[in-house]
């Protein structure tokens, strides 16, 4: 499943997680623990509230002194992977800021 850049995504509500020194561990019941490191851990941190992929890209770009366009493709792939794993979900019923 692809979450388009304007779709809002958020952490699954039934996720279990721990923030470790160099990684974030996330786990759903009935599934193995996933270790998110580096950029993936950073993206996870930004999804503590629901955001669009575009908004996450802008936040990452601001942190790392680059442009949202430069990070968007990699970010989109990562978010799609997280959605496929079920640890990130499309946020229901809230239109994204960029489509309002």
């Amino acid at each position, binding site marked *: 499943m692809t979450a388009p850049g304007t779709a809002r995504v958020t952490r*699954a*509500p*039934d*996720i*279990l*997680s*721990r*923030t*470790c*020194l*160099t*990684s974030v*561990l996330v*786990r759903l*019941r009935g599934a193995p*623990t996933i*270790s998110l490191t580096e950029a993936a851990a950073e993206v996870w941190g930004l999804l503590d509230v629901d955001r669009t992929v575009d908004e996450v890209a802008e936040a990452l770009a601001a942190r790392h002194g680059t442009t949202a366009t430069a990070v968007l493709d990699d970010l989109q792939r990562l978010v799609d992977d997280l959605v496929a794993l079920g640890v990130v979900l499309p946020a229901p019923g809230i239109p994204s800021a960029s489509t309002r």
Partner: protein
Amino acid sequence: MSLPGGADPAGGAVRAVAAHGLAGSHLALPEGPLADDVWPEFFRAARRQRLIGLLAATVADGALEVTDAQHEQVATAHAVAMKRVLDIEVLALDVVERLEQAGVGVRVLKGLATAHVDMADPARRDFGDVDLLVEPGRFALAVATLTAAGMPRDLPERRPGFDERFAKEATLYGPREVEIDLHRLLALGAFGLRLDPRSVWDDGQPFVVGGRRLCALQPPARLLHAAYSSLLGDRSPRLVSLRDTAQLAQRDDIDGDAVVALARVAGGQAVLARALRLAGDTFGTGPDWALWRWAGAHRGGWWDRTCLRAYESQGGSNTTTLLSGALGLTTWRDRAAYAGAMAFPGRAYVAARRTAGRPSEWRRALAELARSAVRTGRRAPR
């Protein structure tokens, strides 16, 4: 009494880790990375004391400087510990759901509750098993529900009817040998049996794990239990339990009068006072607590002193702890039944112990009592 953690530099550093984030603690972490000849013992002690979560927090906060190799060691150990913790939480959710479906209410105790309810970040609190207090009067049903679900009990009931009358807990095993401690009482021995579990069973304090509502005890009962765990739960007081005690004692919303009143009803004022004094002395934080003056002034009576001495951390042994249970009971009938069950457990229990390769209780008891007698003789005035 020497301070928990040890008197050497590694012990001092471990105590400072255990105090990390406690308001008012004067314990300072070492300046600069620990030397290579101190680090291994420090790291082992931090793991032994279940302080990997707090150790990782000191590193993440920049409070403890570490070398690259030390950083990697802490990061790896923390990730391993937290992966285990997530396994335990998944199991806890499964166990709680099964018990609630069977009509058994539970309260989450110790590490899992402390991590989510009392710590700023749950990753600061490591724990190794599921600890649940079972609703009074439902213990046998709770054990039966879980064993029927394929979670075996380590040993059968000591004697028929023992569990509901005298048992502190039953240990069962979930997947991957994760231990599930179903508690009926909050401690072994006299102080455990003196406390009526109905006195701590109330609406509880809700919290959420994995999107599901769980319930811990209310803060006064959590503090009393942390004090019991600190002083009565291990061979020597563990820093993680003392940290839990200190953490709860300095909560803004802790009602000191309610804590003392609960301890009075439970017959555990001496344990609470001594654990608070030890936690305060260990972390240098006591005077900031509302309960500090009470703890400093409290003097237990003969019963308290006698019972406390029975526990391993206070100079007793496992055998004297168990024997002290008779002092926690109020009728001679109960005392006789308890003593009978201690001395003459059922055949299934004895056979299961033998099969599990555990030593004979009689032999162990006699050896421990002999050692106690020798120690008492050495201490006796000439």
